C-alpha cells in the first residue's frame, strides 16, 4: 500500500468535486472546495515523506539525522494560507449573493441563469 496517501488524495479530490457539483447551498459548495484543497496537502506531505525520517526540527536531535523534506512542508503552509484567503473571499461573496437574491441555492440564482 505504498501509494495509499496518493490514492486517498485522489479520492478526496473527486469526492470534493462531487460536493461542489451536487451542492444545493453555496456555503456547502465552498466547504466542498476545502475538501478538494485538502487533497493537495496530502499529496505534498506524501511526496516529501522519507521512510524512518524525523520532522525537520533539529532542536534536540543531531543535525545529521535523516529528516523528511522541509520544502514540501513549507509549500503546505503556503497552501493553507491560500485556502484560508480563498474561503474567506468566497464566503463573503455568498453573503453578497444572499443579500442580492435572497437565496443561497445556486439553482435559484435567477440573474445568473437568464
Amino acid at each position, binding site marked *: 500500500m505504498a501509494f495509499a496517501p*496518493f490514492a486517498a488524495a485522489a479520492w478526496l479530490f473527486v469526492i470534493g468535486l462531487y460536493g461542489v457539483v451536487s451542492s444545493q447551498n453555496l456555503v456547502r459548495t465552498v466547504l466542498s472546495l476545502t475538501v478538494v484543497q485538502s487533497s493537495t496537502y496530502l499529496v505534498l506531505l506524501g511526496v516529501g515523506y522519507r521512510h524512518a525520517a524525523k520532522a525537520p526540527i533539529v532542536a534536540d536531535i543531531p*543535525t*545529521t539525522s535523516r529528516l523528511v523534506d522541509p520544502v514540501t512542508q513549507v509549500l503546505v503552509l503556503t497552501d493553507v494560507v491560500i485556502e484560508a484567503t480563498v474561503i474567506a473571499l468566497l464566503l463573503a461573496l455568498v453573503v453578497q449573493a444572499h443579500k442580492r437574491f435572497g437565496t443561497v441555492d445556486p439553482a435559484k440564482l435567477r440573474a445568473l441563469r437568464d
Partner: protein
Amino acid sequence: MSRRGRLLLFGCAGSGLLAVLVIGLHGLPPFGDFHGAYGLLVDRLEPGRRHATDIVTALNFDLRAFDTLGEEFILFASVTGVALLLRHLRDEEDEPPRRSVDDHRFAGASDALRLLSLILIPLLVSLGVYLALHGALTPGGGFQAGVVLAAGPLAILLAGRYLALKRVAPHWAVEALDGIGALAYAAIGLGGLIFASAYLENFLPLGTSGHLLSGGMMPLNSIAVGLEVTGAFLLTWTEFLDQDLLVARGEL
C-alpha cells in the same frame, strides 16, 4: 442544466477522472523514498548557516523570505477584498450595534462555557506569543501564531459578549494591526538591502543555536507575520459577525 443532468454528467466525468488518477498512481516513485536535492541541502546547510533549529521556519523566513512576502500580501489583499465586499451596503459610519442585539447573541452561553472561555483567553494568548517568538527553534512561526492569537479575542465572543469583543478589538485597531504587520515585514526586508547585500537578506547577528534570540532576523519576521495574520483573521471574523448583526437587526 437540471440537477439530475448535472449529476449524470459529473458521474461520467468524475469516474473518468478518478480512473485516470488511479492509473497514474502506478507510475509514481515509491512512497517514503523522496530524493529532493533542495530539501536535503536545506536540511544540511540551514542549521549552520542561520543557527535555526526549525528548518521549516528557516525556509519560510530566510530562504523563501521573498515568497513569504508575497504570501503575506495575498492574505492582506484578500482580507481587504472581504472587507470591501461586506461593507458594500453598510454605512460608512461604524456605529456600535444596539444593546438588545448584543443581549440575544449567544444568550444561550452557559456559565460553564463562559468560564471555559475565560480560562482559554490567557492560554491562547500565551501560546500565540510563544509560537511567534520560538518560530526559529521549535514548530511554530508567525502564521500559526497569528491564528492562535486571533482565537483569543474570539473566545470573548464565545463568552457571549460581541460588544466586549468589539471593545477589545475595535475595527481601527484590527485594521492597523493588519497593516502594521504587513509593513513591518517589508521594512525588515529593507534592512537587508541597506546592511547586507540583498532585499530580505539576513543582517542581524545569528546568536547561539537553540537560544531565544537566534536565527538572525527570523524572530522579527515571525513577529511581523504574526501581527499581520492576527489582524487579518480578526478583521475577517468581525466583518462576518457585523453582517450577522445587521441581519439580526433586520437592516438587510
